[in-house]
């Protein structure tokens, strides 16, 4: 376990050797999401749009978890998720977006997500994603 600034114990998942890919065009969100993952001991990389995420996989990259933003230039999260699933990619994909109306959420989920969280992401939301996707068992 690691301690954060307020003394709460957080799980350290470094031993599980989980890897994650952050897909987001915002530098603010990239920085926060990477920090959240680092804090939990999850090695991670970042790309700035859906096309880059697809290219990473086409080049042989692979991650246990993808944190996929919805609105991105060139290729958005819905298009990228569909493309990855068409390619047979089985990585868990969690959509993270500020767009939360039911229609948009449904469209994103139907593209092939395993989970969905509203931004902004926090430690507890990330733990909820990891728990839902069976990467972490809460004790």
């Amino acid at each position, binding site marked *: 376990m690691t301690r*954060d*600034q*307020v*003394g*709460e114990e957080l799980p350290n998942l470094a031993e599980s050797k989980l890897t994650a890919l952050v897909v987001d065009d*915002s*530098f*603010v*969100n990239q*920085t*926060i999401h990477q*920090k*959240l993952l680092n*804090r939990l001991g999850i090695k991670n990389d970042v790309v700035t749009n859906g096309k880059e995420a697809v290219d990473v996989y086409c080049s042989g990259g692979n991650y246990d978890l993808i944190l996929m933003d919805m*609105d991105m230039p060139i290729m958005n999260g819905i298009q990228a998720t569909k493309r990855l699933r068409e390619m047979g990619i089985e990585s868990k994909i969690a959509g993270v977006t*500020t767009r939360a109306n039911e229609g948009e959420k449904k469209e994103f989920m139907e593209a092939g997500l395993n989970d969905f969280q509203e*931004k*902004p992401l*926090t*430690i507890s939301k990330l733990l909820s994603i990891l728990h839902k996707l069976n990467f972490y068992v809460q004790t």
Partner: protein
Amino acid sequence: MVLFVCFEQLSPIFLYNSVSWSTLAMNTTVVAQLQRQFQDYIVSLYQQGFLDSQFSELRKLQDEGSPDFVSEVVSLFFDDCSKLINTMSRSLEQPDNVDFKQLDSGVHQLKGSSSSVGARRVKNVCISFKECCDVQNREGCLRCLQQVDYEYKMLKTKLQDLFNLEQQILQAGGTIPQVDIN
């Protein structure tokens, strides 16, 4: 005579120790005062609606490995604000040729990043801004643009003061108080 010499040899030590204790006591008071000032200031920023709980979440992520995490993230946010406001201002320039789609995209991005750092007032202006974009109200959009520009600059000044207080506490040998606002 011997006693006098001994006393003279000893007195600097006594004097040094009493000066050290006195300095320590003064310093502790200075740190406590700065910490109190910090606590009061950050609470006021939440109470006045400049910040919301997401800012607390960012502070929780700051650690010894990344002691400037919060100031780095807010700096990226302020860069976003500056760039997006410039772009949106250009979109609104021509009264007969406003690109509301581009404007909406800019507002959405700004809303997203303000939400991510806990910049509550900026986020709230973005909500109104989006409503004006949705009905293609150029005048309303111009007012919102002006407001969002004002709010982000105000927040930037406030947070700079907050970070300066943090530095003063650290330089005085103290630690930054944990202030958890939910």
